[in-house]
């Protein structure tokens, strides 16, 4: 410890060189922190070479449309992970969202159906939040349990059968276009922008970083640590139920079966962007980069007609690259020689 202290103190006579050194250091650190952006750029170039039509607006919209549900969840997951938490129940909540919206579509107009579905998401998130903040169950365990609980109940309720959605515009999120893109893509864009603003510019956002960086320090400074942490789970569950509505409007049914991949992919997207699983660090633009990398890989492999399994291999490699980069920059910082 004292060795680190020794290094970072500025002796009076070297103030000027140290300032420049810090600037140089920050530049290099910035380049490193952009690591996954370079990966995205390389992927896009590769994709364009393999498929000259890759950068066409149509194709890009296609990528975003496909990944809107998982992207919407990743926005919430970013909050949870920066706050130092974890949520394995999002896929189950997504399934409940889809089933709930499809079921309600037979009883009421789209507006109230969405509203009620979001309220259900809110309540499911509240269950996670209470388990984690009040009962102090480890987030990993708590959401592993609720994931099983939620999906089991959904399967029981639907008798394991898909629930069809009523006709008559209930699929407007995927069926209606605005400026050449379906509303679901605009919804994703708005959520990413709002998430970025909240994390970067608001008091609430700073609080999220603070509890993820050092919960005890935040508590002793007087921050409402319990409500802050709870809010991330509630927010994410609401976004997951919204993702369920979007997915439902794409496929026209509410699927009670849980796509396990959604949970892992939403976490992978956040990690790929460079947000640290240890909490306290990260940003929403990174999650956007993660969504784009994830979507590009899917798209390229689809175009090349490679089997699904190869996509999973590629995704695994990229996630490993992202976390290694994170660990590497972290260890360099710690040794004081970054």
């Amino acid at each position, binding site marked *: *410890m*004292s*060795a*680190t*202290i*020794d*290094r*970072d*103190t*500025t*002796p*009076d*006579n*070297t103030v000027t*060189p*140290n*300032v*420049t*050194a*810090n600037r*140089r*250091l920050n530049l290099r650190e910035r380049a490193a922190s952009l690591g996954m952006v370079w990966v995205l750029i390389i992927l896009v170039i590769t994709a364009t070479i393999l498929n000259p039509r890759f950068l066409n607006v149509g194709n890009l919209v296609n990528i975003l449309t496909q990944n809107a549900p998982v992207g919407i969840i990743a926005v919430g997951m970013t909050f949870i992970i920066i706050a130092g938490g974890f949520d394995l129940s999002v896929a189950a909540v997504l399934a409940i969202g889809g089933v709930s919206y499809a079921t309600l579509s037979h009883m009421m107009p789209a507006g109230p159906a969405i509203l009620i579905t979001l309220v259900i998401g809110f309540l499911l998130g509240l269950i996670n939040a209470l388990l984690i903040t009040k009962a102090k169950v480890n987030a990993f365990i708590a959401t592993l349990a609720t994931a099983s609980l939620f999906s089991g109940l959904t399967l029981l309720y639907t008798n394991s059968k898909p629930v069809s959605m009523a006709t008559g515009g209930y699929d407007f999120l995927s069926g209606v276009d605005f400026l050449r893109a379906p509303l679901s893509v605009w919804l994703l864009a708005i959520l990413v922008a709002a998430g970025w603003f909240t994390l970067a*510019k*608001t*008091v*609430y956002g*700073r*609080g999220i*970083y*603070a509890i993820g*960086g*050092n919960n*005890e*320090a*935040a*508590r*002793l*400074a*007087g*921050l*409402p640590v319990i409500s802050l942490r709870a809010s991330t789970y509630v927010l994410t569950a609401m976004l997951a139920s919204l993702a369920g509505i979007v997915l439902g409007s794409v496929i026209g049914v509410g699927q009670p079966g849980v796509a396990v991949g959604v949970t892992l992919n939403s976490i992978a997207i956040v990690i790929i962007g460079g947000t640290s699983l240890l909490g*306290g*660090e990260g940003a929403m633009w990174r999650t956007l980069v993660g969504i784009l990398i994830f979507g590009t890989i899917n798209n390229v492999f689809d175009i090349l007609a490679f089997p699904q399994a190869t996509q999973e291999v590629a995704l695994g490699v990229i996630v490993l690259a992202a976390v290694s980069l994170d660990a590497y920059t972290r260890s360099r*910082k710690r040794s*004081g*020689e970054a």
Partner: protein
Amino acid sequence: MEPSLSDPVIAVALKAVSKTYGATRALIDVDVEIHEGTVHALIGENGAGKSTALGAIAGRVDFDGGVVEVFGEPLEAGNLRAARRNGVSAIYQELTIVPHLDAAANVFLGSVLSRFGVLSSREMRRRYVQLCAELDVRVIPAGVPVGSLSVAEQQLLEIMRSLVVEPRVILFDEPSASLAVEEREALYKAIEGLRKRGVTIVIVSHNFDEIERLADWITVFRNGRAITTSRRGEKSRAELVRAMLGEQRGDQTLGRVLMDKPVEIHSRPVETGVAPILEVVGLTVPGALENIDLEVKPGEILGIAGLVGSGRSTLLRAIAGAEPTARGTIRLAGAESPWPRTVRAARKLGIGLIPEDRKGEGLVLLRSAADNIALANLGAASSGGVIGRRKLRAMVAEAASRLNFPVARLGERSDRFSGGNQQKLLMARWLYDRPRVLLADEPTRGIDVGAKGELLETLRVMAADGIAVIMVSSELEEVLAVSDRVLVVAKGRSTGLIEPNGDQQIAMEDVLQAAFGLKEHA
């Protein structure tokens, strides 16, 4: 260095050792000779290079110029194993014990005694007891899980572990920093025992009492250079401090006041007419505190003194709302309110806390200095929940500059700063968001002499601003140096409120007597 009488053996020699980190020159042509069988202290401010020098000997620091020799053999730079082969063992501040294993298992962690791959438990127990005897310490039961032992006992186990490999040189990096004053005796006895056995000891320390007691030789570091090496008693404290800080700074700092006894008290009498801002009546925390009364006036510093385990930190935490079982009556500016059971409740009353564990409980190390200052009240610089960057920066810079914190570095991550500057960040937090009452728990722990004086003066600045300050420190001299009055607690009860005598001094003797429960003060 003067040659000794009977040509001593040089155990460790640093010859023109240099080390550069980026633009910072941590060591510049350092020459030090360490004689076999002596205790050699390296002292200096944070950043002076003493820990880097220690690391060079330990093989932890990959120095880039010069030679380190251990008993005449040059060490490969930055090779821990080579250093160990040459008989060098190091004990760092962060202990490397495994809490779930028992004491004996921890001692033999790196070098398990076995026969044909089977643990020889009996042999290890025998050696364990033998090691306790060699160190001249009370035998710690071999079978207890180490997690349940005190830090001091854990440290002794760590020293015993280093002895298993029979080292010739043992390096200590601030060994007493994490120990309470009354726990240090066993450590000192152990070090003296090692010296008696002919082991060479190099120790980095901030604590002058400890250096005077243990060290045969003292080398002072400043700005990466070894400034001077002297024998025990050759130089006075004041001379050493001046060597550490440089001529100009050495004369001004309160650090000097702390080093040169008797302690002078800096307090000014608080006007008697002023009403107290905080009154506590009958504060009780089950199992820790009983029926404590106190009051503080705006502009006053109330020191809390007491031994470890006396409840002094619990007292602060209870007032800060961090003790959910606390009960009693609290009045702020005369207005009575229920006892704050959460930190948020205490904050609403205008009470702010500087926690004891700077890194663990005070700072969000990954965030910038500015963010850490603003942490207690992010709302102050925002409208409608949106932070006004410019306003925030201005408010934070104002608080930081009043405490001589380098304002140009506010954007840097807070783990980049020295302990002294990190502590200033925590203090600046409460200049940025002015509480009515500020509670400072061990504000100078692990901080070097120069910065210590500055931090204590900072508390005075805050008091002069009209904040009522309550301060706890295990360094009695510090409490006496900054406090207007001192409340002494022993075994959870208040045993005395010591006020300055006719010469405006608080007598240390009075405080000690109350702390040990020898005499009840009115």
